[in-house]
């Protein structure tokens, strides 16, 4: 019951309960910021496979799920990671080798698809991508769509404006709604009931959260219900959407969490190096994920020094003068 007072769970339990082989999932965050990395690593650790992943530009988390072989199909707008990877390395290799099936959209289209799901409507119109291969080339064939009740029968539909030339618009592209089986987002603050507060940019997290059948909230800080309700204007995630609240400090590490810590350039650069080499990548998986029990252990492995380097300045919200090259 999504209205219950206490939804606190361990991460292992929450992932085990809601993320299954073949689940349709999405994760929050954007490239190197506020990815729910603790949950991503837990999914990898639980060897969950055949995920159908919906992503706009979720970056590091998406690449790690792909690299570890958890993903079968992906609908995505951007498989890059800012300056750390113009194209995410595991993503690139998996697509080139054909080990994942991919379908391309734009960032706005993916966001609108989550929005449509959150609004409970089958589609939303947009003026983007008319005349492009995003409309023309379908990653998943019509046959495979017709067979799969979890996919809409069409990728995108181009339609004449039924209101004539209202708003000087002759045509629109309709994007179909997404409703995931489970979505995981990492927020700065939450209470045990699941009211969640994101600080800084919310990316598409709110829409993703509300389009999910089940929603796992990992949070940097667990605060009292009374406290989170003193500023209801600053909360974005309604507890009525939430299934599990998991308290995971550094839960977005190695990506950033505004006001708490920065991304770890050492980790992200190392990762980029390792991802390019099969042997090194195997060792990475063993050392940093499979042989680790909890996210806390990973944080301990990283060690005080690096954590101190990425600690956010209380005024700017990031680690000022961090060595990032």
């Amino acid at each position, binding site marked *: 019951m999504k209205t219950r007072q206490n939804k606190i769970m361990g991460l292992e339990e929450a992932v085990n309960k809601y993320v299954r082989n073949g689940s349709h999932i999405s994760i929050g965050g*954007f490239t*190197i*910021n*506020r990815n729910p990395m603790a949950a991503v690593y837990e999914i990898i650790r639980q060897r969950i496979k055949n995920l159908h992943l919906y992503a706009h*530009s979720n*970056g590091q988390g998406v690449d790690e799920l792909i690299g570890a072989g958890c993903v079968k199909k992906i609908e995505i*707008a*951007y*498989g*890059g*990671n*800012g*300056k*750390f990877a*113009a*194209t*995410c390395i595991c993503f*690139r290799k998996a*697509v*080139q080798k054909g080990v994942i099936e991919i379908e*391309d959209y*734009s*960032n*706005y*289209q993916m*966001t*609108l698809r989550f*929005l449509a799901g959150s609004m409970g409507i089958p589609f939303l119109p*947009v*003026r*983007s*991508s*008319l*005349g*492009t*291969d*995003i409309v023309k*080339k379908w990653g998943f064939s019509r046959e495979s769509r017709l067979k799969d009740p979890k996919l809409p029968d069409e990728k995108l539909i181009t339609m004449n404006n039924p209101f004539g030339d209202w708003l000087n*618009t*002759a*045509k*629109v592209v309709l994007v179909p709604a997404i409703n995931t089986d489970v979505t995981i987002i990492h927020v700065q603050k939450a209470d045990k009931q699941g009211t969640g507060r994101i600080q*800084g*940019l*919310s*990316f*598409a*997290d*709110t*829409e993703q959260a509300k389009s999910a059948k089940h929603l796992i909230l990992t949070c940097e800080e667990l605060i009292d219900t009374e406290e989170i309700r003193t500023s209801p204007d600053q909360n974005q995630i309604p507890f009525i959407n939430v299934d599990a609240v998991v308290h995971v400090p550094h839960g977005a590490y190695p990506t950033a969490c*505004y006001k708490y810590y920065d*991304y770890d*350039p050492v980790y992200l650069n190392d990762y980029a190096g390792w991802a390019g080499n099969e042997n090194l990548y195997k060792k990475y998986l063993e050392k940093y994920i499979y042989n680790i029990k909890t996210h806390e252990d990973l944080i301990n492995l990283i060690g005080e020094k690096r954590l101190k380097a990425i600690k*956010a300045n209380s*005024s*700017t*919200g*990031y680690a000022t*003068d961090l060595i*990032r090259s």
Partner: protein
Amino acid sequence: MKYTSREMMTIVAARQIRNGDIVFCGTGISMLAAMAAKNINAPESVIFFETGAIDAQLDEIPMAVADSRVMFGASLNGGLLDAFATMQNRITGKKVIGILGAAQIDRFGNINSTVIGDYFNPDVRFSGSGGACDVASFVPRSIIFMQHEKRKFVNKLDYLTSPGHLDGADGRKNAGLAPGGPEVIITDMAVMRFHDTTKQMYLHGYYPGVKKEKILENMEFEVDVSMAEEVRPPSLEELKILREKCDPQRLILGKI
């Protein structure tokens, strides 16, 4: 004063930005161009990221458009929905200038940032559209950064990720897109623009010391070079602001 190719490209792009423009940019050189414009020629332009930050302060250079460095001191932190709606919006969208990059471009300014080779069996996979297709679809003006190489200026794109002028003249209109499209291509050799009516790319300017022939050699398709003039190199003041104010650590500008 000596300057690098990257500095030249940044300053040339910055000059395209007008006071009052809302500049959609990514990380890297596009952001630097926006920062340079704001500090040099367009003080009331606004730096704007697809992640939802408006007029971020940028005390430090962000490594991604989601970097926490775009959140601090912004006028407003929203999300992707807000950002793209600002560009599709009839009032604010008209003031947006987009800055994009790509793996391939064709004579009509259409770009590919998705794959080289067959879509279903690609030789090289790139990041994909991100917000580029949206920006290219919505906004009236955009700047495209390219490396000037033959494999990048191609007769036919392997994948059309973001619309330029599509098949020319009335291409955008016929497809149902908003008016506009790419205005200028800035490469490491030259500046290209599009003919008003045919929407074909032409050489508008070449950098000091670059021959027109060399530019043509580095493209699969021919372009009109008859109107080309030498591009004014960065002034001392432009360089000084770029180097000292915008990227003192040369995180984006790279080595001199």
